């Protein structure tokens, strides 16, 4: 029981998912919205459970770890998922797809992420990952009558299964060469060896490759644009946010825990992943015309920036990654809440040109998108810049100067395509008049845009968040 109390957040999620399944099955039409709002509540509880109830420690002989790091990451994941679920409402209603299973899949996915973030051995790590991955496959194909969505779901599933295979193979190698599943003992075995055996290194590389699939880091990014484009827009918004952070958190755990002694090995892998992601993300986005595809490449590039911070290693690297990802998640929620407002009487729109002349018809939305785009581009005055500052600064400390230079240059290229969106909004002639946005989209997008103004948010949000992040990063060392 004592051990179970560490899992309060996860237990809440699991129980509410099971119960809501019944409510949904027998609740009829009204059940759908009950399920949605209770799910949002459960996700919020999950987000704060760590800080309030869970406490710290290990459960089940180290299979499940709760520390400041997992608390902070879970809070972000929970809030992001809750926001995603909230802004999904209108899209699914308008597309006549409003089914309760969606909310429940989200709960299971987040439950899997919770286990991933707290994983303390190879098994719990794999269970968590598969749990979230399977939910995500279904969510991608949720619009099952749409050819694009089914294609996206299938692509995601096949490639996801491949990545799981690689991950499993890597795990089996590590297990075979160390003789243990526990992270702590793997670390002990590695530090007792003078030269790390080649099997462990190979296993580590396979595991990182499998995880790179999950965060869509190049060269394992091929699925991203297609899945982002094909999946329902709110689902894309979810993909771009929480699962990325969960997988990054898992990478962080691996490289600071069991493989802390193997910095030589994983640093090289992360650097390669980071450089390729940044460059491919920056150049790939240049020619996109669909805003979801654009954001797919943008998220590839952003994962590259996060990996720059991780590659630096040390507590400052981890805290840099967390700062960067926090800012990124805020922007992603806002940008998808804004994209979901692109809807005329005929239906939802996804083209960048459809935003043309928005500043004339809808000034607030244009200001919001402009803010978000400038922030993603990392232009100073917006949080995106500070996210990059804290992500790149540690890399200097580790002597990765040229990596930072590549990162900065690719963010200049990135600025070009973010600017194109702004250009279309402000300089072009008007194309569409959007229907009035539902309240939750307006609220979410404006809150997220406001959060990206560091001057305004400084005393209330920034300082306490920084303290949490510092504690989170230090808890791993």
């Amino acid at each position, binding site marked *: 029981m004592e051990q179970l109390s560490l899992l309060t957040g996860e237990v809440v999620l699991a129980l509410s998912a099971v119960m809501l399944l019944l409510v949904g099955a027998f609740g009829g039409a009204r059940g759908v919205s009950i399920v949605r709002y209770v799910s949002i509540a459960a996700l919020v509880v999950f987000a704060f459970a760590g800080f309030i109830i869970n406490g710290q420690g290990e459960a089940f002989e180290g299979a499940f770890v709760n520390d400041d790091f997992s608390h902070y990451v879970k809070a972000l994941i929970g809030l992001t998922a809750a926001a995603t679920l909230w802004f999904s409402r209108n899209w699914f209603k308008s597309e006549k797809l409003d089914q309760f299973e969606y909310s429940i899949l989200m709960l299971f996915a987040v439950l899997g992420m919770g286990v991933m973030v707290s994983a303390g051995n190879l098994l719990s790590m794999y269970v968590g990952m598969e749990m979230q991955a399977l939910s995500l496959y279904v969510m991608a194909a949720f619009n099952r009558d749409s050819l694009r969505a089914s294609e996206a779901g299938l692509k995601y599933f096949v490639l996801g299964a491949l990545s799981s295979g690689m991950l499993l193979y890597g795990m089996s190698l590590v297990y075979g060469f160390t003789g243990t599943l526990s992270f702590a003992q793997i670390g002990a075995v590695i530090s007792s060896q003078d030269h790390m055996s080649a099997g462990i290194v190979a296993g580590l590389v396979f595991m990182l490759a499998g995880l790179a699939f999950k965060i869509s880091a190049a060269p394992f990014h091929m699925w991203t644009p297609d899945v982002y484009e094909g999946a329902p827009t709110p689902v894309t918004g979810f993909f771009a946010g929480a699962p990325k952070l969960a997988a990054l958190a898992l990478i962080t755990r691996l490289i600071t825990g069991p493989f802390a002694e193997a910095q030589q090995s994983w640093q090289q892998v992360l650097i390669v992943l980071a450089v390729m992601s940044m460059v491919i993300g920056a150049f790939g986005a240049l020619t996109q015309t669909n805003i979801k595809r654009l954001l797919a490449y943008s998220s590839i590039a952003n994962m590259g920036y996060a990996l720059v911070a991780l590659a630096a290693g040390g507590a400052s690297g981890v805290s840099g990654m967390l700062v960067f990802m926090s800012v990124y998640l805020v922007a992603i929620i806002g940008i998808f809440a804004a994209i979901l407002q692109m809807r005329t009487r005929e239906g939802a729109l996804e083209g960048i040109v459809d935003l043309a002349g928005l*500043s004339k018809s809808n*000034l*607030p939305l244009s200001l919001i998108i402009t803010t978000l785009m*400038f922030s993603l581009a990392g*232009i*100073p*005055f917006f949080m995106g*810049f*500070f996210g990059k*500052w*804290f992500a*790149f*600064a540690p890399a*200097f*400390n580790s002597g990765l*100067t040229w990596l*930072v*230079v590549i990162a*900065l*240059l690719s*963010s*200049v290229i990135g*600025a*070009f395509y973010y*600017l194109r969106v*702004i*250009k279309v909004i*402000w*300089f072009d002639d008007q194309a569409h008049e959007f229907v009035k946005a539902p309240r939750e989209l307006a609220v979410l997008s404006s809150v997220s845009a406001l959060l990206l103004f*560091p001057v305004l948010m*400084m005393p209330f949000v*920034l*300082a306490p968040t*920084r303290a949490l992040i510092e504690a989170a990063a230090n808890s791993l060392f």
Partner: protein
Amino acid sequence: MFKGVPILSIITFIPALAAVFLMLMSRLARPEGKTQIEKNAPKVALVTTLAVLGLSLLLVMGFDNATAEYQFVEEFAWLGGGIKYRMGVDGISVLFILLTAFLTPLCIISSAKSVKSRMLEYMVAFLILETLMIGVFCALDMVLFYVFFEGVLLPMFIIIGVWGGKDKVYAAYKFFLYTLLGSVLMLAAMLWLYYYSGQILGAGNATTNIAELAKMDIPAGAQTWLWLAFFASFAVKMPMWPVHTWLPDAHVQAPTAGSVILAGILLKLGGYGFIRFSIPMFPDASLYFAPFIFWLSIIGIIYTSLVAYRQTDMKKLIAYSSVAHMGFVTMGIFALNMQGMQGAIFQMISHGIVSGALFFAVGVIYERMHTREIAFYGGIVKYMPMYAAVFMLFTMANVGLPGTSGFVGEILTMVGAYQVNPWIAFGAAFGMILSAVYALHLYREVIFGEIENDKLEGMKDLTGREIVIMAPLVVMTIVLGVYPSLITDITAASVDALLAGVNAKLAGG
């Protein structure tokens, strides 16, 4: 004066608050009230910017000339990790604040009539721009400086892109990406400095305080790279030959007031950056690269003067002449002596006034005829005698005629450069002759001669609004030309201390 009052923050953020106020008003207003607000937006903006001007004048009056210390310093916790919100001015920056506060109301007055669409947004963009520009000169923290320095791009991008001329989108992009590319390299250098300060002062004490960083001794090998990274940013901003090509495009496409701000303030950010960062932080590298800068400056002065002579578009001609004048500034700064540095600062202030005035002057006839082709005009002195006189004064100031402000800066920078290398001063003097060639060419073609174009018949002379804009510029041009101590007295102590610090470092290293 201003004890305990965060006067710099107030001056900096008043325009931004006014911008927020305007936007909120237009959001809350009913549809019929919107046009009312749109109509009154310039008035609100004008009152705000005049208030900023008044406060800046008080600031300069309250400024103590005798000390080189930073004054009116404010410091608050900001981002953590040694990055603080730190504002303050010294003799070098205080005048640029005044220059910004001086030019912006004139821009507002001129735009109130010339801007045809989306007045409210235009005023909002200008007010935010003013906040950012003043912020650059107040910032005493590297990160804060960078935030303002880069932030300036955003409203300027929108101003060129929305209210600009025919190829506005191309120009806006070129302007934005060119300058952004330059500044990310500077950002890399700033990150390095941040970590280096952590190594020197202990990991917990890493700082981005500009004054602290200027005191640090940085190894000569690292200085070279850092200097080049900062150079990439400031040289583009300046702009120095050969990275000046964004400027003519941006100028030609920008609306009149945009050009004035671009030439008057934004170009000065580069020079200010050299003085604030490159020279005090990397003195060895500055000395090492000084000949390189000299040659770039001289090539820039002569080449762009020749290019200016061949232009058919008035704005482009003035844009190229700006590049030439900025060549004098870089030359003066890197002479690393009192006259050169003082002259460079003077030249920047003077060029801010004179080139701003020239762009206003072009705007005056552009609004009447909607073309800037030099060949279109000719002989307009017949209908616009007052305009001809005003334009004459600014042309002469641009050439550097004694008695105008343009002369002082150019002669001082040349005196400074002469002490280092007489040939450089000779080249610059040759550039002055060329500047007379293109400026007088422009003047003769536009103002004098017979009227050959029927459309010019009956052009109206300066209106009341235009006189209001021109009068302060005329006064300042002459006053600074006759009594330059107004500026040099304020800058002297700070420049002295700066050079003393540099020389001490050079002697020690």
